[in-house]
């Protein structure tokens, strides 16, 4: 039998995350999929995007003929500065992160555990040189950490698990997970289902998940 539900596209996932961000928050968006979130914050709703390299108030990609070559984001892509934006140096920028001033960070994940542990910086393949960037600082410092990820890997392995098997980025730091099929709160009692895509039942979702899902209490 064919599946009766349809996973969200990356754009739909980004829009879903954006919907939950209130006006006034200072938000750091990780490299990759989380970056898309900023495209879905409505004009006129002041959500201030922070970039690790010292930008407070990062705007969207510039038009090709309006590039300021000195304005790049943490992924080294050209960006803009919004009206009201400010520039600081790297230690001050990470002071914002580590000092708890960022209201929300959205990151990708290899694995999220039911105790809120996150693994997103290293695999078990030791041949590659490890690279961490600012991920551990964001995990330790942001007020809230939300994860955007597919429910499973391309080969169907669950990414939401009982305990991470990959090296940890941070301990008990994830509070919410937005996947391509569902949204979960993460608390001391594990993964709690907030919503799933239409037509996807909790049993089928459980089969795609490596830890027990609780229904909304």
């Amino acid at each position: 039998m064919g599946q009766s539900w349809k996973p969200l596209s990356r754009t739909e996932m980004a829009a879903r995350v954006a919907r939950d961000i209130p006006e006034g928050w200072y938000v750091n968006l990780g490299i990759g999929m989380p970056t898309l979130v900023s495209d879905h914050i409505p004009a006129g709703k002041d959500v201030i995007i922070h970039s690790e390299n010292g930008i407070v108030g990062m705007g969207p990609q510039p038009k090709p003929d309006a590039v300021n070559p000195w304005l790049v984001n943490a992924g080294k892509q050209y960006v803009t500065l919004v009206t009201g934006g400010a520039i600081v140096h790297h230690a001050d920028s990470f002071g914002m992160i580590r000092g708890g001033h960022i209201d929300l960070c959205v990151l990708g994940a290899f694995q999220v555990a039911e105790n809120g542990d996150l693994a997103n910086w290293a695999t078990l393949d030791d041949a590659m040189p490890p690279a961490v960037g600012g991920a551990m600082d964001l995990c330790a410092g942001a007020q809230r950490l939300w994860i955007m990820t597919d429910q499973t890997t391309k080969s169907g392995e669950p990414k939401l698990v009982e305990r991470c098997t990959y090296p940890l980025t941070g301990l008990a730091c994830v509070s919410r997970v937005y996947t391509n099929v569902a949204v979960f709160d993460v608390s001391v009692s594990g993964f709690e289902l907030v919503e799933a895509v239409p037509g996807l039942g909790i049993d089928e979702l459980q089969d795609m998940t490596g830890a027990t899902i609780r229904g909304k209490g």
Partner: protein
Amino acid sequence: MIDKFVSSVTEAVADVRDGSTVMIGGFGVGQPVHLIDALIEQGATGLTIVANNAGIGRAGLARLLELRRVRKVVCSFPRTADPVVFDELYKKGEIELELVPQGTLAERIRAGGAGVAGFYTATAYGTKLAEGKETCEFEGRHYVFERALHADVALIEAWQGDRWGNLTYKEAGRNFNPVMATAAKLTIAQVQHKVDLGSLEPNAIATPSIFVNRVVHIPYGDPK
């Protein structure tokens, strides 16, 4: 639309609670004098004040002390030209003093704002102000362990402010203000000039909006 301007200093400090730790910026200039006066009116008591000094004369911070609203002062220099109130309370044993070297004070506040729990500094090693503190030797030099300072409220003074709370300071009016702005749960700035969002040069903003919760526009002129 974010608008952190509030219409009065009274409104700005309305929810300061008894027992709060309050950082107060300023060093000769750059004191948030109107916010301090509002705090005096507001009535919160049992306060811990973190500032460079302990009040001058009988106004401002000295008045707050005189009204017995301050339990403890954390500062580097409680002895100024006319610190009569602090002197009296101190001699009577009615106020607690935590004396901190000025650079250690600034660094402890900066640590509080930047997520550093504590750090080792060479300042005060071997002196009375390091008594009872943990020490450590690194590469033949001795250091004293100091903990971060946090506050419930920071009252600061700035030169220009926009509705997001981006701030600039004027010359020596900067002093402790930007550092304290980072270390409090609630940072309130009184500013001489209210400017449009976007009118401050992004590379020259001394305190980015992320650190500021409320701004009050008070064009009070000469600081002395």
